[in-house]
Structure formats: C-alpha cells, structure tokens
C-alpha cells in the first residue's frame, strides 16, 4: 500500500491526462473539474461484502418491484403502505410512462446505492440513485493505473478483480435486448463523462452514439454509422436524463434527445437503460419507505438500514421532529442535490421556530434524519495521513440475476469539519478493495 502512496502523484497526473474528470450540472450550468485520486484504498472485508451484497440485492430487487407497481397496478398505494402524496407530487414520477412494461420488467438496470459506515460499524443507506448513476469508471481506471504502478500489491493481497464491470454491464444489456445492436448514447465528446461513455462502449461491445446518429423510423430505433449503414437498435444505454430523452414527450426544446423514442419504447421495440420514470423511486420522500417495500414485496426483513428518518407527515414522527429539531437534519423533499438541507444545530432560536412552523404547515414537504456519526477513513494530506469522512457508492446490476460489483466508488471530503461528501467541495475518490477471502 505504501508503494501506492508513493505513486499517487504520477497516478493523478495520468488520470488528468486520460481526462478523468467530474462534471456536474448546477443551476443549468455545467462545471467540470479534476477528480483527485487518493492512493489509500478503502478496504472492505470479505465478510462485510457478503453482508452488503445480500442487503443491496434485496434493496434493489424491491425498488424494481416498486417501480413496476407504481407504473401499473399501484397496489402498494392501495394497501396503504406508501401514501399517494409522496408518489404523485414527486417530480420523478412521469405519467407518460404509465402502462409501459419494460423488457424483462426491469426498471433500474444499474443502481448506484450510497452508503456510509457508522462508528458503530453498522452500514447505513444514504441514498438510492436509480437514474443512470455514474462513477463506475473512476475506480476502474484508478485500479488499472495502481496495478501498473505496483503489480506486487495486487499479487500479494487477495483483492477481487474489478475489471469485470464491462462484462456485467454487457450481460445486463444483452438480457433486455429486444433484437438489434447495443448502443451507449452520450451527449457528446465535450461532456465530462465522455471518457466513461467511450470506455464502457468498448467493454460492452456497443456502438457509442450521439442523438444525431440515432433516429426513429416506423416505430423502431435505428443507428446510422459514418458510412451511412443503418442498423436496428435493440437496447440503448442512454447517458442523458429523462427530461431530455424525447422532445415530443418531455422537454420540447431538448436538442439532445430522439423524437418519438418513447413510442418505440412503449411498443416494446427497444429497451432503455435505465427506464425513464425511475426518479419516483429515488426521491427523498420515498427513501423512508424502502424498508417497507422490502417487507411488502419480498416478505423479508430489510438487511441494510436506512439512516434513522422521520416523516413529519405522520403525527408520531412530527412530534418527535418538533421536539428534537436541534439535533436533526431537515431535508426538503422537493429540492434536489445538496439544496434544501438544513442542520438543526446550525439554526438560531428564531430560525428554529420558523422551521417548526413550516414543518407543521407543510408537513409533507420535509423529512428529518438523525445525523450519523460515520467512520473516518485515512487520506493523504500533503505529507500527513489524516482521517476524513467518506461514503461508498455501490453498483448493483440487474440482469437475469441481480449482482453487486465487487468494487465501488469511495468519495471523501478534504474538509475536516464537513459531513457532506461531495466532489464539488474539493473532495476526491479512492479505489475500493473488496477482499476475496
């Protein structure tokens, strides 16, 4: 491991040269920056991974069943498990997807589940990302460079090989392919994640395409290559968000979408990865109900825990929240990203009172969570090693079977006082080692 730390600078230089950047949209502006790599890996023991694997598969299977239910029978609402208020006011709920059954009934093919490990060693789920979560290629490429920098580390330590991500993704794509070529759709070469798109296209034997290479004809989707050859597309892994996907169905002014794609999809003539409309299941308000979904659909006890969460919508939770507001985090369900997140202990007496009134008046709008004291991980800071907060994005792939990739993206904060692990705040990433025994 020390060898890796010695090579950290050269690895970061290589990452910069490969164009390994991180891009985010904020207020409709696109920002990109280098995503700095820390050479000390996060190590997940074999036993921990076996436990995480079980819990993640269970969670993602339940989320897929929820999505299928919401866009068809809505039994979970009828049976009073999830209140309809939390479903139909969610901006991720797309009525345009009502009645569509995607190939093999899979909605979330690639799920990015964010977790943290508490000081009590318990893992907690922070967030589910079911709308084309990104980031798998960072640990892939970092591992490749680490392997080159210090081959003996990987010979002498029993680390699960993570180079199978492309193969797993290929299986997921083949499983839902309705007949035709596989396509990875990118917004273009100026997109900061373009390197990831082209990398995955190569690994999955897919065409890398932009919307201008794709078109709908007679209710089928086609790809046209630079020679003008036309091929039918059976599955499209699109790296653009729902609202830009089809200007005829969603945002009319989208220039990066494919007109009438949703009709091809509805007819069952193409598979879309991930399914449009998944946002309804990874909404902040819906998060509270995921353990209930596991019980409802799978008749199992949830293996992985949510961070302790309260819904002021329920009277019992409301009175707890009002009494304990000072030690809780309040999140506005309607706000996305890091917006609308308020720490109770940072509020003045007056602000606290205003917040209470708001919660009473608009109880459906908020969730409240206990602040988790999560475990620090060592990072290299100059010539010192210091502990910092970090989370883990695990990638779960739903094909014929649901599988967890034995790796993941570990993100950390450089700010010693910050609990928010976010690359836009000067954070970085680490390789994630899963031990094979």
């Amino acid at each position, binding site marked *: 491991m020390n060898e890796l730390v010695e090579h950290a600078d050269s690895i970061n230089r290589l990452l910069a040269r490969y164009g390994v950047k991180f891009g985010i949209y904020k207020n409709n502006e696109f920002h990109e920056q280098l995503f700095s790599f820390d050479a000390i890996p996060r190590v997940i023991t074999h036993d921990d991974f076996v436990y995480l694997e079980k819990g993640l598969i269970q969670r993602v299977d339940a989320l897929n069943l929820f999505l299928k239910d919401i866009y068809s029978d809505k039994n979970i609402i009828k049976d009073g498990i999830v209140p309809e208020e939390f479903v139909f006011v969610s901006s991720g709920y797309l009525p345009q997807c*009502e009645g569509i059954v995607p190939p093999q009934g899979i909605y979330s093919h690639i799920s990015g589940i964010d977790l943290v490990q508490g000081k009590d060693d318990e893992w907690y789920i922070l967030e589910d990302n079911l709308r084309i979560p990104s980031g798998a290629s960072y640990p892939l490429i970092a591992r490749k460079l680490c392997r080159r920098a210090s081959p003996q580390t990987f010979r002498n330590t029993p680390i699960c090989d993570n180079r199978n991500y492309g193969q797993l993704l290929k299986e997921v794509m083949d499983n839902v392919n309705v007949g035709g070529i596989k396509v990875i759709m990118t917004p273009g070469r100026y997109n900061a994640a373009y390197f990831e798109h082209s990398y995955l296209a190569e690994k999955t034997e897919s065409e890398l395409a932009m919307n201008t290479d794709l078109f*709908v004809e007679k*209710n089928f989707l086609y790809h046209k290559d630079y020679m003008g050859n036309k091929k039918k597309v059976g599955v499209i892994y699109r790296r653009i968000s729902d609202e830009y996907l089809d200007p*005829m*169905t969603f945002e009319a002014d989208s220039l990066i979408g494919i007109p*009438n794609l949703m*009709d091809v999809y509805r*007819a069952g003539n193409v598979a879309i990865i991930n399914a449009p409309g998944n946002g309804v299941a990874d909404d902040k308000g819906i998060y509270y109900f995921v353990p209930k979904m596991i019980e409802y659909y799978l008749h199992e006890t949830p293996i992985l825990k949510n961070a302790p969460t309260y819904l002021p919508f329920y009277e019992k939770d409301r009175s707890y929240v009002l009494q304990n507001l000072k030690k809780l985090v309040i999140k506005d369900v309607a706000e996305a990203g890091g917006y609308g997140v308020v720490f109770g202990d940072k509020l003045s007496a007056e602000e606290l009172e205003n917040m209470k009134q708001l919660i009473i008046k608009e109880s459906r709008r908020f969730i409240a969570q206990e602040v988790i004291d999560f475990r620090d991980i060592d990072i290299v800071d100059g010539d010192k090693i210091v502990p910092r907060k970090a989370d883990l994005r695990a990638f779960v792939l739903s094909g014929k079977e649901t599988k967890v990739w034995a790796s993941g993206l570990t993100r950390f904060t450089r700010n010693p006082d910050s609990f928010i692990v976010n690359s836009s705040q000067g954070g970085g990433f680490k390789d994630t080692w899963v031990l094979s025994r």
Partner: protein
Amino acid sequence: MKNLRFTYEMSLRFDEPIYDHYFALRCVPVSDDVQKIQILSRYINPTDCLNEVVDGFGNHKYVGHYFDNHKQFEVQIVGNAAVEGMKVHREVLHSMYKYPSRFTEPGQALKAAAEACSKVCGNPLERAVQLMMYLYQHFTYVKGSTDISTTAEEAMKAGRGVCQDYAHILIALCRMSGIAARYVNGFMIGEGSTHAWVEIYTGEGWYGLDPTNNLHIDDYYIKLAHGRDYADCVLDKGVFMGSPANQKQQILVNVEEI
C-alpha cells in the same frame, strides 16, 4: 343527444424546405361514455409512416414522420359525433389529478382566490360549479393577453386570459379544495378554433365544465385529449430540421349539428 359533424384542419407552411420532420397529433376524437365518434376521413400528409398509439394518460395519438424535403404539412379530420353531454364518464380515479402540476402550482394569487371561495359547499360537482361561478365573475376573457406558457398563477394575478387560463385556474382551485380535476382539449360548436375546458371527478367518474363560458359540458362539445394540464396533451407537436425563416400554422375547426 345531438349529432354533430366536425372538421379539423391544420396546415403548416414553410418558406424554405424542411426535412426529418417528426410529429405527434392528438386531434382525432375517440368514443367514450359521452361521445360516439365515426371518422369519415383522415388526411395527414406528407408521411412516411403513421402509427396510432395510446399515451400514458389514455389519449389516442398519431405519431409519424416524413424525412424528405417538404414545405407544407396538412391535417384534415372529418367525422360525426353523437354526443350525450352533462353525463359522468365513469372511470377509476388516477390520483395524480388531485395534486398540483407544473401549470397549476398555486401561488399568492391562487391561494387568495381559494380563500375567497372557502365557503363553497355540497358534493364535488356542486362545489366545482360554485368555483367556476367565482372565476367567471372575477376573471376577464381577453384574447392575446396570455400565451401557451402562462401558468394559472400568472393568469390569476393578471386577472385576464383565454380558455387555457380559465381551465388552469379552475383546475388549481378545484385541487386546492380537494376535488380532482384535469385539463381537456376539444371542439365546441360555434368556435372556429380548438377549445379547452375542465373535467372534475365526481366520485364515480369525470364530468365536464367549461369555465370560459360558465357552462356544463353539454351535447355541443367534442373531446380530444386530457392531462394534468396543457403540457400533457398538446394537440399538435412537431420537430424538424431545416432553417425556414417563416413558418405559418393555420387551424380551422368547424362543428355543426346534423
């Protein structure tokens, strides 16, 4: 019951050729509990392909494309409708119609209006009719005063608008007072263009109200499509390539009793 003959004509003209033209049309009525439709002629031209599909709201939609250069696109639909209005169209309620949508999100002006209407009473239909009456008295029809992107809140604040605004405001007021409501596009006798109105959920099904005219939807209306608001059920949508400096759309609607 009334027997109506309807004609819908839409033409698009461009001064320079366009190509790779995709369209989606919701301008062909279909039969339901209230109206029985017989299509006499359906002309959509030019097209390479035309498919009839049903969207997520249950509306029938014609989608297709034309790839070659063209300078005009024409639609003509002629049919008969046997309409028995002022009747509930039975259907299980989809709860999305109970909650605010993009165009009907209430702000200060709508909340004040809802406050002013807090005394409405009776069953959902009776309450909706009282809300419609309030709107009719406190809102003025002014052609051209708003556009297709105007929200219910903006229109309420301005105090004037067109049928789309009347519909959006009534929907917002209904939803605020616990009545599920949805936006409807269609034809009305004596109106040379398309019209917009509202359906409210009575408890058994949908019932139409025309807030622009303060009327119940009777035998003189033909429905085309519905959604949470305008954005869900646009009648003619299209995208194309090319760079015409000028594009002219003309819509003509005629409904007469036969």
